[in-house]
């Protein structure tokens, strides 16, 4: 019996057509979808290694309905999000996210000034650049995107981009394009041997090579892998798919705060009694941080408050 082949949404046509009202509404109602997108965004923020207790200005590329951006809010940062689908942005507005929303095509270049952002994330979006649209072919679109991403990031800032490459060729195309734009960094593959949980994150550093930069440790215990890193950026990125197959060194991040959370605690917070992201949950997290002698933002501004449209 032939198995049913599911076409990837990327092959069905342009993103602004695929992400219509019906698709956008799934991001309102599907708790499974919400959970998957949120946890990937949380992982991405962790790997951004932002300075502690400093409110930053961040960019969310392909922000959609704002699920990924909300993770940035919860960490106390302000964000701007751009997306090619007006319907997705409409739902983001309806959900009253705090981020500023911009309708734009990342494949024609991000519409921001040099050095505007302290970091950038992108969740499940950049694989769309591997397909041509009216604005150009994949190579050109990827190049415009990475070149502009490099420009809009402050020197020394990171970008963490989670994406779904369809094959080794796309993986190679994407990583090579990032390298050509001047980025250091590499690929982190969480749970590389699980078909379901396997996730690709491109961890990029804008600016001159930084001796303090090390690749984050991949999740998935012994079988996880990180490729590239430190200032040997070129080899890290250039290797692309080929390198990803080889088990390469997995280094610790060095910055304690971002030490990998045990999977146990991750699961607990998700399924435990306290609703994740509730005021109580945040208070608990802060309490834990204080116990570790860290300074924590006081509880007024960002503590799980009901969001209003006016606040940023």
């Amino acid at each position, binding site marked *: 019996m032939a198995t049913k082949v599911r076409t990837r949404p990327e092959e069905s046509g342009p993103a602004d057509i695929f992400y219509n009202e019906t698709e956008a509404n799934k991001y309102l109602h599907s708790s499974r979808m919400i959970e998957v997108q949120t946890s990937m965004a949380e992982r991405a923020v962790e790997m951004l290694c932002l300075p502690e207790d*400093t*409110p*930053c*200005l961040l960019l969310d590329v392909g922000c959609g309905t704002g699920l990924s951006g909300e993770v940035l809010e919860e960490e106390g940062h*302000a964000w*701007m999000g*751009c997306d*090619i689908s*007006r319907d997705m*942005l409409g739902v983001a*507005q309806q959900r009253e996210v705090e981020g*500023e*929303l*911009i*309708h*734009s*095509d990342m494949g*024609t*270049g*991000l*519409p*921001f*000034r040099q*050095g*505007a952002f302290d970091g950038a994330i992108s969740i499940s979006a950049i694989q769309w650049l591997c397909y041509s649209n009216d604005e150009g072919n994949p190579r050109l679109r990827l190049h*415009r995107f990475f070149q*502009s991403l490099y420009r809009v990031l402050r020197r020394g800032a990171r970008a963490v981009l989670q994406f779904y490459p369809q094959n080794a060729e796309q993986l190679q195309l994407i990583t090579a394009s990032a390298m050509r734009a001047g980025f250091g960094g590499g690929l982190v593959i969480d749970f590389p041997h699980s078909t379901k949980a396997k996730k690709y994150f491109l961890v990029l550093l804008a600016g001159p090579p930084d001796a303090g930069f090390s690749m984050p440790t991949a999740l998935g215990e012994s079988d996880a892998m990180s490729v590239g890193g430190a200032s040997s950026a070129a080899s890290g990125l250039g290797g692309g798919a080929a390198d990803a197959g080889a088990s390469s060194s997995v280094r610790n991040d060095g910055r304690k705060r971002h030490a990998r959370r045990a999977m146990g605690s991750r699961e607990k917070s998700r399924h435990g009694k306290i609703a994740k992201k509730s005021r109580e949950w945040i208070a608990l997290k802060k309490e834990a941080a204080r116990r570790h002698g860290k300074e924590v933002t006081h509880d007024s*501004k960002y503590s799980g408050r009901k969001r209003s*449209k*006016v*606040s*940023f």
Partner: protein
Amino acid sequence: MKLLTHNMLMSPGTKNGYPLAIEVEKMETVEAEFNGEFTARMVEKLDYAALLSTLRSLSVETGLPAAVPAEYAGDEVFLKALHHALMEIEILEGYLVCPETQKKFPIREGIPSML
């Protein structure tokens, strides 16, 4: 669209497409919680001259000085005025106009379209 966003936005794919002129059709003043630390952090990023000229073009009076004060980080009066300018003025309908190409980008329901 807040003026902080406007201060960061530029016409995509241009070298000198900044600052974008605002042709405003509808704007409103909202209330946003003041965060002094965040506002002070934005000072390094801002194009202050562009902000002042934008405020003038919108005929909005904010009491901001002609230049950023030297000790701005501890200057609550300045930071509050800046916060108001950056976070509490919302452009809801209108156009952004690229100074390089004259291309017009519509703003609808508060979202600028930079396509």
